[in-house]
């Protein structure tokens, strides 16, 4: 089992009287660069701290035109982390390939991070969220085609000697010859996040990459997604490795269950009620009709529909409590999902610096060692 600290870098200062979406059209007059200066640096510190605490790695991701996560360029963050850490894996989960034209840009920047960090990059590729197709005016009906072509280009850039030619429908490169190349051979480990698109699950299984379940659904939805993923691997003729699966979940630990909830709950609701609205918009053509059916099955349980803390606990939307509670819930869910990577969100919404740090400290001291003992590296994690 590997344990990562994931940061969304949320914007914590939406005015109380703003009740619109946090995505696409959230007015950028609400953005305060003074807040940005403070939180970018603070959030980076929180990620760097994971090295001292014994995590296996850190994760950053890419989103545009939103208050949910102000990282339009996760590669900038990852390059800073490459310099400020020495041991951690740096997972960029991921670059939204269809938004990079030409996609060799991703091959170049990821290779730079891998070189600077001495081979510590985990390369994430994403199709891009629904909102991004509005923000970039890129045709969602081309999302999968562009993603597939861009993926092939990045892999070609990393694994084939140039110059090479790529003539596709969406991208044409006559003199591909990417400098630099990644340190890790044949290429960095690849992670693909997904929210239940069957096309994505099948793509990951086919390439033997790792699938990261995007959070904010009822735990039953994840269980189904990871089962579909394991089945997709079986159809490809192999049994999945637990390290091919990752569960991303908000985590908050304090001395007692009551204290944890008291400290955490308001920040959770800021996240759910202020930062999630608008994230679920799915542009037409973005996934196949059969995938829409699959996604709709889960969407009824999406976190933005929650109204009570009891629902949060019941659906395991966030793992909150004393060290014992958090440990037990994590073990139970990891066993249900069969995921060999745990991606914890230790800061969420408006959770302030002091509480985030304490959360990380208590988790690292009292939960992490027990998890490592319970799930030694290479162990089977799926409960029978």
């Amino acid at each position: 089992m590997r344990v990562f600290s994931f940061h969304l870098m949320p914007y914590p200062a939406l005015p109380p009287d703003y009740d619109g979406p946090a995505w696409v059209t959230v007015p950028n007059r609400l953005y305060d660069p003074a807040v940005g200066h403070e939180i970018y640096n603070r959030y980076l510190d929180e990620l760097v701290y994971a090295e001292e605490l014994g995590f296996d790695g850190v994760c950053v991701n890419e989103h545009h035109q939103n208050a949910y996560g102000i990282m339009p360029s996760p590669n900038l963050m990852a390059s800073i982390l490459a310099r400020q850490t020495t041991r951690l894996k740096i997972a960029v989960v991921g670059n939204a390939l269809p938004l990079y034209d030409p996609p060799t840009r991703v091959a170049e920047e990821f290779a730079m991070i891998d070189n600077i960090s001495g081979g510590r990059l985990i390369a994430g590729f994403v199709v891009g969220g629904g909102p991004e197709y509005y923000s970039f005016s890129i045709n969602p009906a081309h999302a999968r085609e562009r993603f597939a072509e861009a993926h092939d280009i990045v892999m070609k850039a990393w694994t084939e000697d140039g110059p090479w030619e790529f003539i596709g429908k969406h991208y044409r490169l006559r003199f591909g010859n990417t400098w630099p190349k990644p340190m890790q051979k044949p290429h960095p480990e690849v992670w693909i996040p997904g929210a239940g698109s069957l096309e994505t699950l099948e793509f990951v299984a086919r390439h033997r990459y790792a699938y990261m379940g995007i959070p904010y659904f009822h735990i039953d939805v994840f269980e189904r997604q990871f089962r579909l993923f394991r089945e997709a691997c079986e159809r490809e003729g192999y049994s999945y490795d637990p390290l091919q699966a990752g569960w991303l979940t908000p985590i908050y630990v304090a001395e007692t269950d009551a204290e944890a909830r008291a400290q955490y709950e308001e920040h959770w609701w800021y996240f759910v009620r202020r930062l999630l609205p608008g994230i679920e918009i799915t542009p037409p053509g973005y996934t196949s009709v059969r995938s829409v059916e699959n996604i709709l099955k889960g969407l009824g349980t999406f976190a933005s529909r929650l109204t009570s803390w009891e629902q949060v606990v019941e659906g395991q939307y966030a793992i909150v409590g004393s060290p014992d509670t958090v440990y037990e819930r994590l073990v139970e869910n990891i066993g249900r999902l069969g995921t060999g990577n745990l991606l914890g969100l230790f800061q969420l919404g408006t959770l302030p610096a002091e509480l985030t740090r304490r959360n990380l400290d208590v988790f690292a001291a009292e939960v992490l060692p027990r998890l490592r003992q319970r799930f030694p590296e290479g162990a089977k994690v799926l409960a029978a």
Partner: protein
Amino acid sequence: MSATRVTTHVGDIELRRLGLGSDVVYLHSAVGEGEGLLLLDELARTFEVYAPVFPGYGESAGIEQIDDMEDVAFHLLDLFDRLHLEQPAVVGNSLGAWMAAELSVRYPDRVGALVLVNPVGLHIEGAPIKDIFGRKLDELAGDFFADDSHPMAQMMTMMTDAQPGSLPFDLVRPLVQTMAATARLAWDPYLHNPKLQKRLWRITAPTLVVRGAQDTLVPPAHAAAYVDAIADARLCEVDDAAHLLALEKPAELAALVRDFASAA
């Protein structure tokens, strides 16, 4: 009405064919109307009506081979050839009107008369077409229909308030599918072809541009621009009708087509 399948170069498509008389082709809007569309029966009283379902809509295959209006025009040309439609009158609503214009600028001789109902297809600075891809269905229904008691308007409003996953997927599927097909054709550039306006002079068919007086989706400047750029064109406004005029005013539209095509 007989629904048949026609083999085209991109795939098999659905075709409704009814009535006797001179040829009229009806090209549907982005909602893929056809089945049960009263306009077709009204037109069939005087015309031989051909109503193809475009690839990606209904049960018509081949959308994956169509990326833009260039492909659309060639698909329509292929279809006309296969159906031996030499010079039919072509009627289209919204997206269908845009497609009719794209065919007409390339093959003016293949269109005997042109009826463009609330056409999209142009970009007019200062007169944007409202968004259809990101807004709630009840808002769209307000732009599509002047009368919110129209069954489709009612259905759209009902679907707006439904929890995701609570509706039977068979009810949702047609909408998911038609919106996906429309996005493929018209997401970017949004509901227009930058090259169309400067090609409109090539249209030689007598052209009637019909505008729903309550069409709040497409500003009036769009119908006016078509009328200005096409040599033999005139404008007709229909009251109590919004964007999906073909669904809302079938008898009135059929009468307009009848009068116009017989004079043409």
